[in-house]
């Protein structure tokens, strides 16, 4: 069978992998895999709803991993990019990978492979940025709280980093764009959703939610940031390249600049 068909999945990574499994089962050369709720079907296209099946997802995961560890990472990262049409790209990527004789080597001369690689690279960079730019503020409930607004859905990727690092303090990292967060309660990390009335960026106005000392430390940090700059080497272009303006409102050292 060589037909084109639209497969609709629930938006989860396992759901997507299940759809890939079904695609392979039906031997679809081009799989049109779409998220539920974002469906854009052609007029005469046949659609099939995919029910997430962990076992099938696992088989795809293992199949890819046996071919290459880099590939499995690339696929997961590219998936989290939430880019239009990334499903079709990843499907093609997996097809190529499974048909290839070269174990481990990546075909950087192939457009699709290069594209997935670039997507994964972008997501990786955003993950790293959030590990760097998340700024905790201490609430009166003794929880360190951070708001983030990443370009891609990187919360699942940064969970382990923060868990390993801040093992002796309660913390919340909340993605204001995707409206969910991580909460570490000194034992485990859980996914939470909050009813936030206002976004707690590092604004100049003080919020009663945070301790008094919190603002003192922010002040100290801002001072440090200023005094560690060498005036005769100012290079604003480089500064903005490393700390893009869209993140400034969440950084206490840049709050005066916003």
């Amino acid at each position, binding site marked *: 069978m060589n037909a084109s068909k639209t497969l609709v999945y629930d938006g989860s990574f396992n759901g997507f992998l299940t759809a890939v499994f079904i695609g392979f089962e039906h031997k679809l050369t081009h799989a049109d895999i779409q998220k539920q709720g974002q469906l854009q079907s052609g007029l005469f296209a046949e659609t099939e709803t995919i029910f997430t099946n962990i076992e099938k997802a696992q088989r795809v995961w293992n199949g890819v991993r046996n071919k290459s560890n880099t590939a499995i990472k690339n696929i997961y990262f590219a998936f989290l990019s939430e880019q239009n049409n990334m499903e079709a790209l990843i499907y093609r990527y997996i097809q190529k990978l499974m048909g290839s004789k070269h174990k481990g080597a990546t075909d950087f001369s192939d457009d699709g492979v290069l594209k997935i690689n670039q997507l994964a690279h972008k997501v990786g960079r955003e993950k*790293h940025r959030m590990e*760097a730019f998340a700024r905790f503020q201490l609430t009166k409930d003794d929880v360190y709280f951070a708001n983030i607004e990443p370009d891609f859905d990187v919360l699942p990727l940064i969970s382990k980093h923060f868990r390993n690092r801040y093992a002796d303090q309660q913390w919340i990292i909340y993605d204001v764009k995707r409206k969910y967060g991580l909460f570490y309660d000194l034992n485990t990390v859980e996914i939470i959703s909050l009813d936030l009335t206002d976004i707690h960026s590092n604004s100049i106005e003080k919020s009663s939610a945070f301790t008094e000392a919190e603002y003192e430390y922010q002040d100290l940090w801002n*001072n440090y940031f200023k005094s560690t700059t060498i005036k005769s*080497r100012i290079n604003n272009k480089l500064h903005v390249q490393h700390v893009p303006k869209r993140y400034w409102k969440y950084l206490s050292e840049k709050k005066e600049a916003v």
Partner: protein
Amino acid sequence: MDFNRIKEKLNILADAAKYDVSCSSSGSNRKNKDNGLGDTGNGICHTYTEDGRCVSLLKILLTNHCIFDCAYCVTRKSNDIQRAAFKIQEVVDLTINFYRRNYIEGLFLSSGIFKSADHTMERLIAVAKKLREEENFNGYIHLKSIPGASDELMYEAGLYADRLSVNIEIPTISGLKLLAPDKKHEDFIKPMLKVKNEIIRYKEESKIIKSTAKYAPAGQSTQMIVGATGESDKDIMYSATHFYKNYQMKRVYYSGYVPISTDSRLPSLGSEVPMLRENRLYQTDWLLRFYGFSVNEILDTDNPNLDMDIDPKLMWALRNLNHFPVDINKAEPRMLARIPGIGMGSVHKIISGRKYRRLSWEHLKKMGIALNRAKYFIICNSSDWERRDLDAATIKGMILQSQNSKFKNQYNNQLSLFN
């Protein structure tokens, strides 16, 4: 805690520490212990200053009181500046509170030398010890080795610190005599040697006994000031190579001299920081550490200085045209790495990609290779390649014409007529 007083001290003591360019927080293997605070990893730059430098550690002096009078140093005895000193507990509190808010990867603690080298070193160690033992802090700690500190103290310092460094500052011994007459070259070397030997001992012992106490797991580094004493690039890079080889340095840093004094032995106030030169030295450093070059291939008595208008790899290639052109589809990795415009990342992509098909210009372009430089030095799967027998000067001219460098005004000595 008196926040206002702390703020004053922080401003003074951060301002004085900023000329130390090292801000690396990578290379350690310290992990979170007993659900305590912090760990180390690949290093993170949590923000960047307005001069574009990475801020990864809380970089401060314990005090800027100093008994020495080194001409190049902002905290020299004779300089009329505000002096301050932190208490040990104050540094501990600042570090912990900054760390908990995800501002920093850890602490970089240096100091002016008060009373004696040993007395100063003891205080630095006390901060690190307190962080490790009382706060169960597992983040990154970089301590300065104070020139002249005793072996016993250098041993103890390594038990708490991830990295130790002593800045040689002046690359030539004659320069040191001129600018820092009360410091001796041996005083710098002694702690360096002790740390090196301890690191070797730690590595050997931990192979046999896994529980051997960590000793400076991120190694040691040093820094040299560039452009303060009229030294050549050859002087700097040969001395850097010496430290890499004989002291197993993890890093040598190059810091363009920022004029801070009216001393006649030094460049006058207001003269430009040699940032382009600094950049070329770092490029050379990378060629030595990652690209398989040896220092005498790049700099020797006939060529004691780097070209400012082109990068050192291109400079080397133009002097050695007999090695080129290189066939992208056949050449060994070590030769690929020597082609101007191709970085190590691209080398890996080429090696991986050429297993599938013979690579052409189109492929190389998509991989992100700087073809404007590389094209004169390679052939690939295409009949279209540079066949003219061009000489070095012509190639250089063509490359310079094809690129627009932000540093152009710094190396263009010719006066322009209309501006």
